[in-house]
């Protein structure tokens, strides 16, 4: 039996971040990974000769810069290249484009609606206000409002202060923003369908809610609160694919002396007398450690690798009720060349960014209705990118790789498991939608990897294929994530911690949950806090 100070289950980006800080603090740490490769959902692999697919997460922005800097990720090979552009193709052959240049952007909006072009300024300012409000809390443990401990009270007070600083109306506006649907929010600013659809899609990505479901305006922030090189709200590609994030984190961890052990499928967390003792693998190996950190989602953590007899009954119930709904699928496509869309020039900067075909909120909402009926969207919302235009390392010269994120795909089809026929039907609905706007698209396809929630769950170990390790709804945010009373990364058993996206602040490749959990662990061990906190913007 090998002995470590701490074991982290799962080599996702949060597990690696967590382990890196524990190792940096001087602990003997091992990360155990079920797959033969690391990264979890932050992974890139050559699944078609010559092509690298980032087949889960595909773009980068939310990764906390404080952590990237502190863990020296650039030195370990991480390079995030910002991309511009973005476009929504309309059914009538026109499009709405997103430009980096302010004046160009204004003219493009005004082409559709002068009123909207003028409203955009106000919209950006208002969203940025909410973004700035939330950013400092990403690298902070959420305070427990039902606790009277000094640290919670202090944090709560700080939290309250940053809100009251907004003034009465500002506060009310903020509360409205947090409780409103993205559709209603956009309706307040804009009148043009395609502009609303372009901006609104991000409010439902990865979420089993529709654009008119209250609470989705907040999900919008998950699109705006990141930054690339200090440009808040911009997005980039990790050079070489998202796997590069995991690779850099792994190198950082190893530089601090931590171990990564692949092909190590954890069977259970060993608990004795209410204390964690270590973990046992499916192959019979055992590792002993006084600290075990789970990077798995709450359902897998409490219902799979922990024994119900080791847990309080309410935790088991809460884990069972935890909402972790599959709502997305993905297509990764190897292309023989760059396709054309709606007559847009191949050199257009618009194609460098995220491309969509859903030109109204109504179509988005109807796509959600299909999910509720337990079938994939017949007219899905896609978030499509061709990263090889910006990062040519992912495909052979002259060839391209396309990543198509698809909303919605339910975890089950009419109550049953996904069949291969379902998968083919799902794939067809996506390909048809793209081909309807691109005459040469079908002919350029060399290989297509289709991932339904079934595949996402099987490979990345995300229950139901939920990309955020749990719905980002208010009952599962902040002090409620993953469940009330256990939102401060500590599990119900001594020595057991959680560090996955199922904890605050949630999914997206942020690495914040892993870092926040490390801070709590070090605090419990009475070691100095070496985890950077969030910095305030300007």
């Amino acid at each position, binding site marked *: 039996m090998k002995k470590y100070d701490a074991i982290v289950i799962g080599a996702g980006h949060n597990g690696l971040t967590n382990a890196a800080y524990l190792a940096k603090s001087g602990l003997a740490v091992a990360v155990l990974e079920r797959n033969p490769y690391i990264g979890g959902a932050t992974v890139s692999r050559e699944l078609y000769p010559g092509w690298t697919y980032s087949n889960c997460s595909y773009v980068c922005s939310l990764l906390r810069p404080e952590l990237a800097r502190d863990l020296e990720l650039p030195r370990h090979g991480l390079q995030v290249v910002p991309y511009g552009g973005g476009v929504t193709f309309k059914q009538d052959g026109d499009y709405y484009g997103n430009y980096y240049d302010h004046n160009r952007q204004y003219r493009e909006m005004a082409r559709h609606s002068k009123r909207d072009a003028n409203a955009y300024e106000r919209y950006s300012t208002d969203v940025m206000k909410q973004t700035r409000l939330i950013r400092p809390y990403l690298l902070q443990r959420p305070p427990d*409002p*039902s606790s009277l401990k000094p640290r919670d009270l202090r944090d709560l007070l700080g939290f309250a202060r940053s*809100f*009251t600083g*907004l*003034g*009465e*109306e500002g*506060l*009310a*506006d903020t*509360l*409205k923003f947090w*409780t*409103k649907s993205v559709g*209603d929010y956009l*309706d*307040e600013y804009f009148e043009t369908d395609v502009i609303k659809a372009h901006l609104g899609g991000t409010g439902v990505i990865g979420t089993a*809610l529709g654009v*008119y*479901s*209250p*609470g989705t305006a907040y999900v919008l922030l998950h699109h705006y609160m990141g930054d690339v090189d200090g440009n808040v709200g911009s997005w980039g590609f990790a050079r070489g694919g998202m796997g590069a994030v995991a690779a850099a984190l792994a190198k950082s961890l190893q530089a601090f002396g931590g171990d990564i052990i692949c092909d190590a499928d954890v069977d259970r967390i060993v608990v004795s007398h209410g204390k964690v003792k270590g973990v046992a693998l499916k192959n019979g190996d055992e590792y002993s450690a006084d600290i075990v950190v789970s990077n798995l989602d709450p359902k897998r953590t409490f219902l799979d690798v922990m024994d119900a007899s080791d847990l309080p009954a*309410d935790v088991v119930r809460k884990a069972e*009720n935890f*909402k972790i709904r599959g709502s997305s699928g993905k297509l990764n496509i190897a292309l023989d060349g760059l396709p054309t869309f709606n007559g847009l020039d191949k050199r257009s900067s618009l194609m460098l960014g995220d491309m969509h075909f859903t030109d109204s909120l*109504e179509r988005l*909402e*109807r796509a959600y*209705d299909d999910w*509720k009926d337990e079938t994939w969207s017949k007219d899905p919302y896609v978030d499509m990118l061709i990263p090889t235009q910006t990062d040519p390392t992912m495909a052979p010269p002259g060839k391209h790789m396309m990543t198509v994120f698809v909303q919605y795909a339910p975890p089950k089809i009419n109550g049953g498991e996904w069949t291969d026929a379902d998968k083919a039907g799902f794939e067809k609905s996506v390909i048809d939608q793209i081909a309807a706007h691109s005459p040469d698209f079908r002919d350029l396809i060399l290989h297509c990897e289709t991932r339904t929630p079934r595949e996402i769950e099987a490979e990345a170990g995300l229950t139901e294929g939920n990309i955020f390790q749990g719905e980002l*709804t*208010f*009952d599962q945010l902040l*002090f*409620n994530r993953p*469940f*009330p*009373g256990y939102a401060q990364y500590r599990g119900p058993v001594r020595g057991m911690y959680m560090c996955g996206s199922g904890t605050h602040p949630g999914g997206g490749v942020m690495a914040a949950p892993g870092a926040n959990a490390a801070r709590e662990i070090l605090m419990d061990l009475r070691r100095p806090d070496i985890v950077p906190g969030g910095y305030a913007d300007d």
Partner: protein
Amino acid sequence: MTERHDVILVGAGHNGLVCAHYLAKAGRKVLILDSGDNPGGAAATHEFAPGYSVSSCAQWLYQLHPQVRRDLELEKHGLELAAKDIASVLLDAAGQHLTVLGADVRGDQISAGDIAAYRAFHERTGKYAKLLAKVFAARPPKLVESNFTDRLSLIRLGLGLKMLGRDDMRDLMRIVLINIYDLMEENFDSPQLKALLSLDSVQGSHMGPRTPNTVFGYLYRRVGEVFGYQGVAQVKGGMGALGEAMAAAVRAQGVDIRLGARVNSIDMIGDRAGGVTLASGEHFTAELVVSNADPLTTLAGLVGYRNMETGMARRISQIRCRGAAARLHLALDGLPNFTGLNGQQLGQRLLIAPDMNYIERAFNAVKYSEISKAPVMDISIPTVHDPQCAPSGKHVLSATVQFAPFEPAGGWEAHRAGFTERLLNLLAEYAPGIREQVVASELLTPADLQRDYGMTGGHWHHGELSLDQVMMMRPFPGATQYASGIDGLYLCGAGAHPGGGVMGLAGRNAAREILRRGAVA
């Protein structure tokens, strides 16, 4: 002609009447102006076919605050209940109904586990409703520009939360923002029970069971229990009788009520509201204007955007107020024959909503301004308890129908007959032969409700009861604690805190606030 009053109250809805009562009791001279022919607003009875009358908007009484009822001495002024403690019955086409009254649930298909789970659920949520009821009975506290009173109510709220105990407090903070669908799935197995409770959560709103915030809708309804109503009650003579009783109480305080007086505008004197002009051209001036009309009608319509800043105008225009409930009234030449129910049982609250997904699908349609193919219905046969509403031996059936859009494609006239037909067919599935009993029918769409009761969008609550539009966000940021954002103009209707339903609290709280601030000498 110019007449001088202390307060002009626009609208004789139940909240307006309640507000006027308290103002008059405190010695203010109040004039109420209403365009309708009867007092009560949405608490109305009307004769929709010769000899047949019905509560044409609100149909059940289940939230009227007991203190309002006492203070207005409504019983003395003629209020009589035809029946109370009326159970809700979720109809089953084969007659295996589910009946819920208070903490009790009965039915052929319900398991002992669900019965116990419901009792526990009812008790727990009852505690939350109690807390909510306290919040409803006071003005919503400001959070930043708070004064002593606000801080006190915030502390009370905080203490109330703490008093729930740690587990319940955490539970409340978790569920208050979520949808009723998930909560039902967490707690119960019976599709009928889940459907019944989730229907209660979306009554009168533009939401489906899957819409987040619907748990709040459920708790909102449960507040009625805190106010002493077990199930629902039926007013003798229809809800209009409540309006009449309130009007009588108010007149006894010396308030002038002028009916048939449509207010065309609220007039500004400088940057202050100082009077109103009627459609007839008549002017009235007063120190203070209080509006019982919904915020959009009041501010966008009567005051006009030209009299306010852009920021405020924008916030007002953003109030979500999409009505989605229609009313169906049927005159029947006999008592309908609902499978598995007889006699007095027909006087219960009968619901058509087989399961939660059925309700959700019914809601899907209205999102796209379409009419539900299979709508949900909340049915009352008032003549069971109150035979005077119809000629002898005849009956009236009234139903709230969800979901119906404000304006379907092609306009309502193209759909009215077809929708009525659809509803009759649906009813016939549960009450065979009812089609043959129909003597006359009337369908009031959200557009009709807007026309008849002046409610923007035909929305019962004068604005969606969604968490972004409650408490200090109601009706919109910048106008809270019954102020309207315009000097000299207050709001006392359902558009203000706490919201709609025949509760009377908006009116009472508004009057208290006006008096407390010394807004009118």
